[in-house]
């Protein structure tokens, strides 16, 4: 499958309320875009039922070339250092048309 190119998918699970901040991070670090899912869930801060704004989780996906992963993680660590609850996952993906995700 020579037409697929390896990149990284960064997944951030956090509160709806932080959507704006994450969008900022993505834009500043030059990702080509992002995708947001609303989700329910539970973790150390209890159940997030999705009913109130404050109770809704977002799952934030950004696909970036390998070269940009580190800067993105730095920015996320900054946010966490200020006290925000984030969960961050990084996984391997292969993209068709890598120029789209530059």
């Amino acid at each position, binding site marked *: 499958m020579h037409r697929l190119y390896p990149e990284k998918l960064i997944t951030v699970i956090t*509160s*709806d*309320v*932080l959507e704006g*901040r994450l969008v900022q991070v993505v834009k500043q670090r030059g990702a080509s875009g992002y995708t947001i899912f*609303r989700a*329910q869930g539970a973790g150390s*801060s*209890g*159940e997030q*039922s*999705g*009913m*109130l*704004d*404050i*109770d*809704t989780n977002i799952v934030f996906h950004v696909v970036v070339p390998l070269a940009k992963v580190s800067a993105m993680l730095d920015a996320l660590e900054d946010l966490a250092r*200020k*006290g*925000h*609850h984030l969960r961050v996952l990084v996984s391997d993906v292969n993209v068709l048309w890598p120029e789209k995700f530059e």
Partner: protein
Amino acid sequence: MLSNLLIPAVLFFALGFFAKLIKSDLRFPPDLAKALSIYLLVAIGLHGGYELGKADLLTAMNSVMWALFLGFGMPLIGYAILVFSKKVDPMNAAAIAAHYGSVSAGTFLTAVAYLDSLQIEYDSYPVIMLAVMESPAIVVGLLLAAWSRRRLAQKQGAPQAEAGNGDEHDRNKLTHILREAFTNGSVVLLLGSMVIGAVAAPQSMAKIKPFIEDIFMGVLCLFLLEMGMEAARRIGEFRRVGAVLIVFGVAMPVLGGMIGTLIGHEMLGFGVGGTLLVAVLAASASYIAVPPAMRLAVPEASPSLYLTLSLGVTFPFNVVFGIPLYHMMVVMMVGA
């Protein structure tokens, strides 16, 4: 109290609570819950604005002034108590306290339904106060947090990285805080609807009336059904929160109810109905506008603390016990 329990809105709250207690798989679609609260904010806003348009300007100004007083004052009282209790650190104290300066529209509307069911008249000014009270609480909460943050930094000897730029930085911060407090989604919706209600041509307002009045009580019932489920969900967190804070979650609204009763009767000269509503404004804690603001701007505080107190303790207490209790207090004071 018994009469309170015959109001459909309160009964639906109880039904939602009960459904979660018996572990029913009853579920609300998330977007419905959010839609209901948007509807309620718009309806309250339009209604309040419409009343404002017809109101006596002096009394209205006076009401707004006292609303600001409550919005700024209650968090200061709450903060003092919490810091004094030593059960939470200053950042959490600031975040929790902010909730008590704001109001819970759900509680306020339940009180209105309570008055309706007893056929007690009430002034329209408290609706205006409600719309005014969201922002000050957010502002004072953010200021208390900024102040605590700086004190913590000083204690720890090392000045915080961000705190370094001195005065100009502080001024920026303040503008930022004010901006957050006034661009908050529910604040914009409530104040915006109020302005629309006040300036819109009366004959076109008449066309919206059925939407914001006839179906209002039914929507409120669905909303409280959902909030009952939310409140019950928080019960599991009680242990984490601890007895002292739970006592705070009951004592603070009672104190607020007393202060509100005084202001409503003595300062604003309202009758039994209006005074009860002011008491409820002072007694209730926000769970729509303030929590997201705190989560964003005071990330150091724990959401499960302030949400459990506001949604799991104070809200159910007010809806079930508080309203009739404040009614008693008001009747004793007004003497009617």
